[in-house]
């Protein structure tokens, strides 16, 4: 149980990981509640992807505890669809052969691709492929969903649509979500809580209100604060990351 009484999806304590002499994670602590959307924000090389790979069971750790599902669902930066399987078989990967198709069809319908069950992956756009990857992650009803910069390769408009879709899916399925990004605007648009990761530790935590998620104006102070946490001068009216997103979409 977390401090506010909700069920925990993940508790990480004192997590350590090093590559040779360099410590990438230096005793990192972290909690994610069921249905909570936590965003890890940090520069490249701060340890956030290392953390996510350790949580996914892909890399070993050198110390600390992970208390969470043994097999969380993961969406990577690339869709990683099997090119030799049609969409529904991609989504049903690892599921029971008999019930797989019905579950995959339901999951693909949820991401708006219910009419393309028999399509080959190479016919999809980048955004569509990433939607299939989302369906594949959610079809198992995971307790914990790990998202490793899943929208970084998409164009700005598609990214906004994906944000909306992910928000809906998370609200409906209520997994604990841990999203890794270096995009401040993405963090604010999605997170209940933003954790700034620096030097292998959680350096700061910022709760994000619904008002701040919905209205860009309400989040301006938070945005400047997060940018300065990343070492970007807060006086810049439009940083590199936020200039990609047209303002009127948020208005």
């Amino acid at each position, binding site marked *: 149980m977390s401090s506010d009484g909700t069920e925990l999806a993940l508790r990480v304590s004192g997590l350590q990981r090093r590559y040779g002499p360099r410590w990438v994670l230096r005793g990192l602590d972290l909690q994610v509640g069921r249905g909570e959307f936590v965003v890890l924000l940090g520069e490249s090389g701060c340890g956030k992807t290392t953390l996510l790979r350790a949580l996914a069971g*892909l890399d070993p750790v050198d110390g600390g505890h992970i208390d969470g599902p043994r097999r969380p669902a993961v969406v990577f930066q690339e869709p990683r669809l099997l090119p*030799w*399987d049609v969409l529904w078989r991609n989504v049903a990967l*690892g599921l029971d052969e008999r019930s797989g198709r019905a579950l995959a069809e339901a999951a693909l319908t949820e991401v708006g691709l219910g009419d393309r069950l028999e399509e*080959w992956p190479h016919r999809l756009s980048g955004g569509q492929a990433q939607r299939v990857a989302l369906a594949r992650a959610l079809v198992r009803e995971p307790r914990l969903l790990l998202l490793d910069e899943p929208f970084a390769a998409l164009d700005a408009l598609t990214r906004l649509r994906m944000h909306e879709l992910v928000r809906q899916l998370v609200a409906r399925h209520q997994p604990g979500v841990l999203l890794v990004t270096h995009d401040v605007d993405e963090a604010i648009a999605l997170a209940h809580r933003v954790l700034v990761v620096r030097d292998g530790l959680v350096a700061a935590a910022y709760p994000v209100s619904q008002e701040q998620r919905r209205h860009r104006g309400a989040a301006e102070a938070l945005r400047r604060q997060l940018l300065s946490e990343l070492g970007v001068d807060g006086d810049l009216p439009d940083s590199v990351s936020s200039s990609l997103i047209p303002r009127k979409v948020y208005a």
Partner: protein
Amino acid sequence: MNQACSPPGTPFEAVAAPSRSPARGWRFPGGPGRDAALRLLSWAVPVLLLLIWEAAARLGGLSPQVLPAPSKVALTAWKLILQGRLLSDLGASLLRAAAGFVIGGALGLALGTAVGFSRLAEALFDRSVQMLRAIPFLALLPLVIVWFGVDEAGKIFLVSLGVLFPIYINTVLGIRQVDPKLLELGRVTGLSTWALVRRIVLPGALPSVLAGVRYALAVAWLALVIAETLATTTGIGYLAMDAREFLRTDVIVLTVLIYALIGVGSDALARALERRCLRWHPNYAARGRA
């Protein structure tokens, strides 16, 4: 049009701008009609050569001992079919090739999968297989006859040996080229080792394996021709050797043609297999539509 001085639609314009589409209309039929014409042309040349051959044989320019007329060869084929010899010999040859291909192919695929997938299997087998591969397998022919006599087993052994290596090498290569990111995905999804091999490793290696199959088919025929001409009492090769004793050039030419046809047929089969199994692949899908 940049020729503003000439009124549109005059013959002059068509001649002056030959690369533009209106000009193409009268120079060559366009679209599907043009494709059909080119296809016809590509078949016309071999048919013409055949006709020249026939004419040369009939007019006495070619001795029947050297090269009998195509019509004579066709007639011989028909007679041999009526005697029941041609089909039974063809069946014997096809059976040998199929048996050798299945045995060698299965062995190559299994070994290749193990070596491509596991470092331990690589340490155990790869060096030995590579050493055996250095032997030109046809050089083993005298040894094979000593071991197996003129029996079926020797011929099947030789075909298996010829097929094994190309399939082994292409399987190992194909598995090494499987995208590690997809393997990672398989692990995250919690696939068992067997499911990982079946759903990700083998499908990913398939384009390379099928390229190996096509090459192996050619090797299988080569092995069979050699094996059948040396020691046998049935099969297409035997038919040829038997005919040599009696100077039946028409039968020899017929056997050569049959070998060629089988080669063409097996290659077509392999390509059909590729189109079927690699439907998902953009390159093969495009070729399939063309």
